[in-house]
């Protein structure tokens, strides 16, 4: 494409087409294009620069004072003015140098005050221009002392050099807004021209009547602490963003090494897996240590321990190929099960309380069987409720609902608020209702109290549900919708899947260490407590757990460390999309999975390779802190346990 500006202010576009006939080998040249009359604005004071971008669909007319016309020439036959803007907003300043960055879409503008700015052409919804794009000042580089007289951009990366009127030269990294080097020409004459060699090895400058030359050795200049952790404005993005994108399809692709999405992914995986695994592991450890018959314990514990050596690749494969499709198929059931299973367990306990005291004592050995029977009941209830719940809360199709196509936000709020309201109900029970009930029930029989307790439990459960629903309605009416934040479009491999399966992976570790800690509490404490008339439960919660607390804490820390570093499960079941998204139902990529995926392909000693090593170091630092804390706490616990 050619663009010509004539003296009368007419701008002419011509696109040249070369066509080669395959049969005759004849080449035909054709010229087509259009014109745009700019009138006196361009003829009286002709613009200083006329530039065409790399694809030839945009032309820039830049006047000395910074006034700029961006011409949209996507259709050369009908060019039109896309937008008018000022490249140097400061009054009185003039544009003294103009250059394209590699890829030829972004402008590098130097002015007479020594400022160098990079302008990106970005597509924005709110763009005023007719073609939906707008030119934005994305980066301002560290200023020089005198007017910019020459600019040169590298042809392979976002490196550029600026020459100033006082004879200094600065080498910049645009995306990171860093000045890599400040140079000085020999006789301090104004820099007239600059050039960077294609492989970035050489910089030459013409200043005064001399030619100066420097060797450049600036490895890994695109990477700094800021670009690794803070949002960076990359070309093609409409705002600064935190992106991990290490490879691209084109030659002028700029690798983006933002670690934030990966660290976020790691934390997301850890959070959800601990949310699921931690309670189960600790509760199971307490039951094993305090309520289980020693003979049963001797069989149960090694079984769980052996699961710790189950290869995580097996869990990952099952998560991705078996569990994820089932979960996608029965999401409402799974969500209902999260509520229904604890509910059925509590209900079972309240029913169990109805047993007369002697029967309860006699049947205590069979309690685990009753609990085991309650579990399938809970799952059954969830399976029955799943369908109706989906129709009631999620407009009959939870996938479409999550996508935001149907329904309102109440179902989502209910999902999020129900645990909170259940906790509140539990608090209300212990703080308010139980003391009152105690006073009233002095003369009741045990069974009668148990019956009242059952009714109380059911009423409170209903109340919790109702209050959660009420709060959900209020929040929804206020216009807040949880979709788009913590909930959102369902992806088959997501944080929920990883949470379940990685939670399962950390259970054996936390369980083993926690059970050991509880078992290390000396038996004479238990004997004393039971001898003083406390029940097993009171002994467990008031006598055994407090001294074992630091051991339990260290178990949690070790579990956290394992969850942070787990690779195969997230690699296979998390979808590996490096995005910053709190959505529970979206995929993510963790530091560990990222290393496993990309390190085998990274070129040795490249920036990519080093960044991956940095990711490994980050991972190491995270687990190092967790493990050291765990170890110190464990040692202290051991000392304390000896004193008991």
């Amino acid at each position, binding site marked *: 494409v050619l663009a010509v500006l004539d003296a009368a202010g007419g701008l002419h576009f011509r696109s040249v087409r070369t066509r080669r006939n395959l049969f005759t080998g004849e080449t035909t040249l054709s010229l087509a294009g259009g014109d745009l009359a700019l009138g006196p604005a361009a003829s009286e004071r002709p613009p200083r620069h006329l530039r065409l971008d790399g694809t030839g669909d945009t032309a820039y007319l830049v006047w000395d004072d910074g006034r700029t016309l961006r011409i949209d020439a996507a259709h050369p036959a009908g060019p039109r003015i896309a937008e008018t803007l000022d490249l140097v907003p400061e009054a009185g300043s003039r544009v003294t140098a103009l250059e394209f960055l590699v890829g030829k879409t972004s402008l590098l503008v130097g002015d007479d005050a020594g400022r160098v700015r990079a302008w990106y052409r970005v597509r924005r919804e709110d763009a005023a221009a007719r073609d939906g794009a707008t030119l934005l000042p994305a980066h301002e580089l560290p200023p020089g002392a005198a007017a910019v007289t020459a600019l040169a951009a590298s042809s392979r990366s976002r490196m550029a050099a600026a020459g100033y009127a006082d004879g200094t030269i600065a080498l910049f990294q645009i995306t990171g807004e860093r000045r890599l080097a400040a140079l000085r020409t020999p006789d301090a004459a104004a820099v007239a021209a600059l050039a960077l060699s294609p492989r970035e090895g050489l910089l030459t400058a013409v200043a005064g009547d001399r030619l100066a030359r420097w060797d450049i050795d600036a490895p890994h200049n695109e990477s700094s602490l800021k670009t690794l952790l803070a949002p960076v404005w990359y070309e093609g993005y409409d705002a600064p963003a935190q992106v991990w994108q290490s490879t691209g399809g084109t030659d002028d692709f700029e690798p983006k090494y933002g670690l934030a999405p990966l660290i976020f992914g790691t934390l997301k995986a850890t959070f959800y897996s601990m949310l699921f695994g931690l309670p*189960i592991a600790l*509760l*199971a450890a307490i*039951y*094993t240590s305090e309520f*289980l018959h020693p003979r049963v314990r001797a069989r*149960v514990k*090694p*079984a769980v321990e*052996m699961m710790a*050596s*189950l*290869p995580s*690749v*097996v869990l990952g494969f*099952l998560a*991705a190929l078996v569990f994820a499709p089932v979960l996608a198929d029965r999401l409402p059931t799974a969500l209902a099960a999260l509520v229904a299973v*604890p509910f059925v*367990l*509590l209900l079972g*306990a*309240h029913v*169990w309380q109805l047993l007369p005291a002697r029967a309860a004592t006699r049947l205590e050995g069979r*309690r685990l069987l009753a*609990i085991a029977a*309650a*579990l399938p009941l809970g799952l059954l209830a969830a399976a029955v409720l799943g369908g109706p719940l989906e129709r009631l809360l999620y407009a009959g199709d939870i996938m479409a609902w999550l996508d935001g196509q149907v329904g309102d936000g109440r179902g989502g709020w209910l999902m999020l608020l129900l645990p909170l309201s259940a906790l509140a109900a539990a608090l209300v029970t212990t*703080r308010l209702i139980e*003391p009152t009930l*105690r006073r009233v*029930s*002095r*003369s009741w029989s*045990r069974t009668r*109290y148990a019956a009242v*307790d059952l009714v109380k*439990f059911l009423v409170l459960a209903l109340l919790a549900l109702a209050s959660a629903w009420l709060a959900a309605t209020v929040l929804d009416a206020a216009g807040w919708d949880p979709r788009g934040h913590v909930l959102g479009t369902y992806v088959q491999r997501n944080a929920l899947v990883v949470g379940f399966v990685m939670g*399962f992976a950390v*259970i054996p570790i936390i369980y083993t260490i926690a059970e050991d800690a509880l078992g290390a509490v000396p038996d004479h404490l238990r004997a004393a407590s039971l001898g003083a008339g406390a029940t*097993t*439960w009171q002994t467990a919660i008031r006598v055994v757990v407090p001294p074992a607390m630091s051991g339990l804490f260290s178990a949690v820390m070790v579990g956290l460390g*394992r969850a942070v*570093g787990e*690779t195969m499960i997230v*690699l*296979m079941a998390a979808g590996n999309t490096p995005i910053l998204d709190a959505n529970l139902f979206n995929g993510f990529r963790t530091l*560990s999975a990222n*290393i*496993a995926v990309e390190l*085998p392909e990274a070129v*040795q000693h490249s920036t990519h390779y080093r960044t*991956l*090593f940095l990711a*490994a170091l980050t*991972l*190491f630092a995270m*687990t190092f802190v*967790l*493990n*050291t804390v765990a170890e110190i706490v464990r040692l202290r616990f051991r000392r304390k346990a000896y004193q008991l």
Partner: protein
Amino acid sequence: VSAHAQDTRAGRPRTRATRRSTGAATAVLSRGEPLVWLTGGGLVLALAMIAGLLALVIWQGGVTFWQRPLVSLTTSDGATYLGEISRTERYRPAAGVMAGLRGAEADAAGAIGADNEGALTRLLLRTGNFELDGEHFRWLSDHAVVERSRPEWALLLERLTWGRFYGEPVGFLVDGELQAQDPAAAWALYRRHHDDVRDRWHERRDIERNEMGAMSRRMETARLAVRTAELKAGVDSPAWREAEAARQRTAEAADAEFTVLRERIAALNAVNDRFALRLRTASGAEKDIPLAEIVRAVPANRLGIGGRLRLYLARWGEFLSDEPREANSEGGVLPAIFGTVAMTLVMTLLVVPFGVLAALYLREYAKAGLLVSLVRISVNNLAGVPSIVFGVFGLGFFCYVLGGGIDQFLFAARLPNPTYGTGGLLWASLTLALLTLPVVIVSTEEALAAVPNSMREGSYACGAGKWQTIRRIVLPRALPGILTGAILAMARGAGEVAPLMLVGAVKLAPELPVDGVFPFIHLERSFMHLGFHIYDLGFQSQNSEAAKPMVFTTTLLLITIIAVLNLAAVRIRAQLRKRYAAGKF
């Protein structure tokens, strides 16, 4: 008592109520039944998940090789498909699909929908015949199937290439002439010739692999000699000229031998190519399949229970002892088993001496102090470092720094092809040795600590020195613990995959790390690994539907190996304990 009085004075009604009331409330509440149930629920849930997982793997892995009947399904649009049903599922039809159905199909769909809350069912049929239809599997909606049958002569072929083939035998060709017309006769001829054809095929493969491989190695050695001479003395030096002449002689000799071998192969192929089985597919197309291509032909619907059982065992045998075919989705996993075992053994050889020595020093020689506790904390910390970090270290240090250095000094002639400067058995074993070091150190330390001090003192009192005491008294008693640690380290190492992805496990290794060629153990070679095999099959396979059952089988195998190792640890510990219990005093 005084604390109680203070509480009462401070006016805390709840506490007072707790301590004083002896009524019904306390009788019920003190048992904390709801919370006990929650803790029990946690345990039951954990156990149920473990049991469920094992049951799933055992079941799915177990049924993979069980031959299911071949069914022929005719759909409402007149097409017929032959194959095995791999699974069925429910699905929600797109809007308007139900309304668009006509006649019997609509009735069937309505009935299915009524049974399944509006959802329809479909089945995944493994149809094979990839070169004819371009697909291995096909979804068929149950309501669209109008006729089902089990053709008596339906034949399943497991082939060397193109995956499975389903069809009915209609003829047997010898030298392109039709020798049999009906299925029974064709089958009989197939049975008569197939074993011989397979034998010839094996012979051909052995020639290709062993004799031609040896030839290539000789030529490669000669080429390396030339290159070494070039590096040492320069091009055109006397040494170089000598080496070059030797290379040419080898090349000429090899060329002659290659020709002979190629003739032998051609002869074997020519005999094998004479036989072919003609099959008719469900859609009526006929195809001649050379007998050499067929690994196994199964007339699935004619098999009785005994036949199925034999087939089942034969397939397990093939799985455990053969090489993979078809991008690992068929055949066996022998190289992966071999790689896993070799890597684990080398790792154990590396880790046990170091771990035991370190533990001995820490427990028997070092004086307790800040340094020792720092070392202990570090060792425990090492146990918690993510395995992928070990992998990164292994790649950066072992492969690139150490391996690169070794290549520079010892294998310069092979550069730029890395010998040790890339992932391999040695580096993988070293990396995993680092990873499992804490396991060995901790369990050895525990075992040493469990040896009563009275025994050491007794030994000293008899005049033994420190090392004598350790060697004769302490170590034998600690042996069960040390062995347990070693076996636990093996179990951990065998199941670890993430670091191996970086330091040497590959999708398909052309050569085993141990073979009959000097120096017999090739530590620099990359290898296959069962765990990596699972990842690769499940996630990188083109024919993932066909690979899935194999993943389950491989998983079952890996879990079995690890469980056996763990159980062995338990057994050895128990037995050695018993033996040394007799010597207790």
